[in-house]
């Protein structure tokens, strides 16, 4: 396998982008990444997008967007693993460059979620759960995570204040990210005073509905060194993916996210790294309890210590292991297919030392964890500054 670097990063401001169609937000992120990389052609485009069919009524997406940037003719493929579609787009691009099948790959993620109303968006997202045996009975995504939260609380003593601390921390980080959807100071008490969505999760424990896109350009490391122009070269040293039953009823342990643990194990093994080597992480905080569970599965904290760690500032900027310096899904927004790509864009920005006010000082090894649905899939990447 060849060493693979990320030579370009493209992010745009996320939010309710009513004035722009999917094709435009995708193209803006793609062009930003190509410009950042200093290249004007690629061998392949991958597109992570969960459900363009349900959100905007468009399938055959990859060909359509390739044409939008004058690249009709270039191979392009949309990949889907629910909310982990972006991470999967990166993993597929990584495999193409590592194998030598392609040299330059444009990895993208996009979701346009506000062209449908809240009920239709909830339905589209709900298709990531088992529709026949979960959705049929009226369960929602907040509901599924709420059920896991209760198990975690009963087993470890995790509290609603600890969960709220995750949301407060990520909103504090989002205040420092100009691309974030929400620039709001949110306190633990604000979270606990917000509407109950699915007991014990409040509205402010939940990530929002967002329009957004993000992009990366991959290249073999040798090519990356030529194009770096004095900036640090960031390599992908580990890539792991795992699946799990998508129905909670089929899982052995509802207090664990086994797909995350397995994906992390595989990524750490490929990179030759361990949890304590990681300087900065972007993780899938679709709900506050998810960040707590994920930081445990990634090995940053022992089981049951994720909640106290968040409450005690260990995952804040300046803490032992800063988690979600971008603001996370909670504050930056969660355009489902774009999230996994944007997480990696943030890690590259951090490792390049270009994250401005939210910079994690001295970070040279980072990790991004993306999750599909209620944990039915997860993808973990480890990135390092090349020596």
């Amino acid at each position, binding site marked *: 396998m060849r060493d693979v670097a990320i030579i370009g990063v493209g992010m745009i401001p996320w939010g309710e982008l009513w004035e722009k169609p999917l094709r435009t937000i995708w193209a803006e992120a793609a062009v930003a990444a190509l410009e950042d990389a200093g290249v004007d052609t690629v061998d392949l485009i991958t597109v992570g997008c969960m459900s363009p069919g349900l959100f905007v009524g468009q399938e055959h997406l990859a060909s359509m967007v390739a044409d939008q940037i004058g690249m009709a003719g270039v191979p392009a493929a949309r990949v889907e693993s629910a909310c982990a579609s972006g991470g999967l787009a990166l993993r597929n691009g990584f495999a193409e460059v590592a194998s030598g099948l392609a040299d330059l790959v444009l990895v993208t993620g996009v979701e346009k979620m506000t062209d449908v109303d809240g009920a239709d968006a909830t*339905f589209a997202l709900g298709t990531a759960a088992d529709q026949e045996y979960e959705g049929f009975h*009226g369960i929602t995504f907040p509901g599924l995570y*709420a059920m896991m939260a*209760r198990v975690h609380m009963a087993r470890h003593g995790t509290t609603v204040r600890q969960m709220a601390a995750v949301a407060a921390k990520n909103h504090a980080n989002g205040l420092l990210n100009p691309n974030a959807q929400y620039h709001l100071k949110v306190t633990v008490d604000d979270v606990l005073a917000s509407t109950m969505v*699915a*007991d*014990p999760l409040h509205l402010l424990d939940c990530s929002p509905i967002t329009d957004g896109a993000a992009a990366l350009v991959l290249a073999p490391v040798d090519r990356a060194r030529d194009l770096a122009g004095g900036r640090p070269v960031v390599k992908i040293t580990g890539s792991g993916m795992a699946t799990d039953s998508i129905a909670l009823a089929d899982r052995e342990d509802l207090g664990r996210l086994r797909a995350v643990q397995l994906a992390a194990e595989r990524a750490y093994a490929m990179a030759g790294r361990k949890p304590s080597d990681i300087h900065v992480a972007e993780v899938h905080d679709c709900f506050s309890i998810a960040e707590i569970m994920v930081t445990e599965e990634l090995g940053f904290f022992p089981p049951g210590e994720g909640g106290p760690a968040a409450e005690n500032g260990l995952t804040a900027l300046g803490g032992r292991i800063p988690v979600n310096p971008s603001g996370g899904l909670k504050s930056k927004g969660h355009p489902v297919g774009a999230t996994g790509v944007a997480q990696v864009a943030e890690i590259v920005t951090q490792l390049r030392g270009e994250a401005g006010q939210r910079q994690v000082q001295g970070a040279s090894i980072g990790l991004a964890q993306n999750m599909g649905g209620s944990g039915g899939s997860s993808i973990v990447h480890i990135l390092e500054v090349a020596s």
Partner: protein
Amino acid sequence: MISPARSWREAPQRYRLEAAKCTGCGRVCYPPRVVCPSCRGRDFEHVVLPREGNVVTHTVVRVPPQGFVEQSPLTIALVQLKDGTRLMVQMADVADPETVHAGMPVRLEFRRINSDGEAGVIYYGHKAVPA
């Protein structure tokens, strides 16, 4: 909208709690599967799920999905039946959702789940009631 074909196809599971038990390892699959997730066996015998069980975990969905607005808030539980099979169901006949808790004994009862509008197909299935 659930198609007539789907309603018909799912009736054995929805109406009668029919499942498949792996003859190799004894794992019960609800709904039936082609391959046993525990031992990858492919031989199954037909079984009907027991109706008694206990709540494993639950939530109260206060922002309901499409089609469930009039039933909101929905108390939904993951229930483990006496044979170890787990399934997700709504709770019914619970006056105060705060009384639902892990370990609570419940029984599955045949109930109306939902319908396609005023004049459409009515979906039946099972809900859990306090035992």
